[in-house]
């Protein structure tokens, strides 16, 4: 009895094993197809996550990641207690937050406006122009900012005609955020309107006709037909943007930095780059970067949680 049970077990195990083998034999191709992406992800995405433990070490490149000594949270404490911390942290937060608030409504307005253009050809041409800046590189956009806003540039030719004095746009800290955000809107708002335009195009024209017969004017129709249509998309776009507040890009801010606008233009990513790759303080820089990532994850989870909560009630949708 005992024996036969054991044998049965063995048979079952062998059967399971061979069916797994058979499965792989049959479907190995799927795993083969997945492997390049998997290997690259493990190396170039998970590799650095392992490497990030240097944030907790007194890292020296000679001793390597494992050989360097643990220092606990020393690098984090160093950042949090440094006089720069508050300024850099707030700069990052303000730049993203104001950017989100100011940029969010523009594509929606553009889409609502485009939706009222009834001749398809005209609409298409307007879209063609509005989307174009999306394809201009950040280097060129910032290059254009420097040219246009320079003390002798075209904008200042206008300004000095009015005020008599050129405005030092790029070197004064108080202008940095405005220039950054407004030029972001210039580059991206048209492109960001695509998704709203597409949603609005799906609205049944009969709805508008019926509302019109009932005496609803244009603004009322926009408010009661168009806006409810795109509200779910607005919510998703907003959540994604809010969740990414700390993951603001390095590229543009770094290019826009001048020696004198640093009080507002130094943000965590540019700081990480400077202390890490320019000054070679690897461990400290890794700690600052990790700090930023963690804040970002917390933010994302919070936003996600809040939205879920709100959705159970009446909430965003």
């Amino acid at each position, binding site marked *: 009895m005992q024996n036969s049970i054991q044998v049965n077990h063995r048979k079952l195990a062998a059967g399971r094993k061979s069916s797994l083998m058979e*499965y792989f034999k*049959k*479907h190995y*191709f*799927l795993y083969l*197809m*997945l492997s*390049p*992406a998997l290997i*690259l*992800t493990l*190396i*170039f995405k*998970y590799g*650095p*996550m*392992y*490497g*990030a433990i240097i944030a907790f070490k007194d890292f020296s*490149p000679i001793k390597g990641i494992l050989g360097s000594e643990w220092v606990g949270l020393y690098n984090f404490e160093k950042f949090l207690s440094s006089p720069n911390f508050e300024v850099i942290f707030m700069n990052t937060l303000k730049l993203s937050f104001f950017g989100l608030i100011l940029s969010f409504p523009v594509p929606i307005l553009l889409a609502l*406006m*485009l939706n*009222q*253009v009834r001749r398809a050809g005209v609409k298409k041409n*307007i*879209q063609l*122009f*509005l*989307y174009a*800046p999306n*394809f*201009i*590189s950040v*280097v*060129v956009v*910032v*290059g*254009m900012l*420097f*040219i246009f806003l320079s003390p002798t540039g*075209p904008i200042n030719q206008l300004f000095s005609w009015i005020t008599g004095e050129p405005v030092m746009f790029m070197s004064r800290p108080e202008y940095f955020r405005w220039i950054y955000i407004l030029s972001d809107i*210039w580059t991206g708002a048209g492109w960001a309107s*695509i998704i709203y335009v597409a949603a609005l195009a799906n609205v049944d024209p009969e709805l508008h*006709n019926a509302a*019109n017969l009932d005496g609803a*004017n*244009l603004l009322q129709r926009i408010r009661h037909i168009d806006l409810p249509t795109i509200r779910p998309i607005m919510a998703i776009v907003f959540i994604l943007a809010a969740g990414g507040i700390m993951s603001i890009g390095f*590229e543009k801010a770094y*290019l826009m930095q001048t020696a004198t606008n640093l009080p507002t233009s130094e943000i965590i*990513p540019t700081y*990480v780059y400077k202390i*890490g*790759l320019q000054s070679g303080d*690897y461990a400290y820089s*890794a700690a600052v*970067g*990790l700090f930023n990532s963690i804040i*970002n*994850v917390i933010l*994302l989870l919070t936003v996600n949680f809040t939205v879920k909560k709100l959705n159970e009630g009446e909430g965003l949708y």
Partner: protein
Amino acid sequence: MFVKHSRLDRFMLALNAAFLTLAVLIVILPLIYVVIASFMDPSVLLSQGISFRISDWSTEGYKMILTNPAMLRGFANAVFYASAFAVLTVMVSVCAGYALSDDRMKGKGFFMTLFLFTMFFGGGLVPTYLLVKNLGLLDTVWAVIIPGAVNVWNIILSRTFFKGVPNELKEASNVDGASEMRIFFSIVLPLSKPIIFVLALYAFVGQWNSYFDAMIYLDNPNLHPLQLVLRSILIQNQVDPSMISDQLAAAEMKRLSEIIKYAAIVVSSLPLIIMYPFFQKYFEKGVMVGSIK
């Protein structure tokens, strides 16, 4: 549509047209200004800005840019990086997307989580740099092409696409005894031209316009892509001395530096701006497929 417009509505529509015109002007005026400025005579540009008299125009800026070795090399490098990057990204994402779209794949959920996690959390700049350095990729073209080749977003895009391919197609050929590899290459792949095209366009444009990876990984100026060359001209104000022959004085350099900037902007942005209207619908498709998820 037979909507009848009241007077208020007609007023609103006129206002709408005015605002849209304004938006278009805000977008294209700076671009038109750059193009006109790039054709100005350098001295006129410096002393009085742009002018519309033909006699004030010249192509000096373009002569400078198009004979500049750094610029030409940057252009060639950018074409190579963007093409190679597009090919690699497309291969990696299409293959992974196809595998993950197949319901028969075991462990699909686990792999998807593995990929998705990297969207929200990463090791950071310095650990990534150290990894690339330790792999011996610094100052090689691979540093720009390989680390970014796997992109979760692209995998999701292609998975969404393949989920839309009717299963009956695959099953029918399965019955015929075709291997999975043959099904993929002879049936699914020919259907996937749109997704391949969309992914390749996005990858090409992204790589063409980026400077950051090249800046941190490539020291050798011979490997620099266009955007890094542009950065030194436009932002660091370093007009390559070799652009202006030795005999010319510093004054000449100053005279020419502005026109060189304008011409550089036009030359570097032109390929994409010309190409984009033809591919507009594919770019839009990319946005739409991504939004359904």
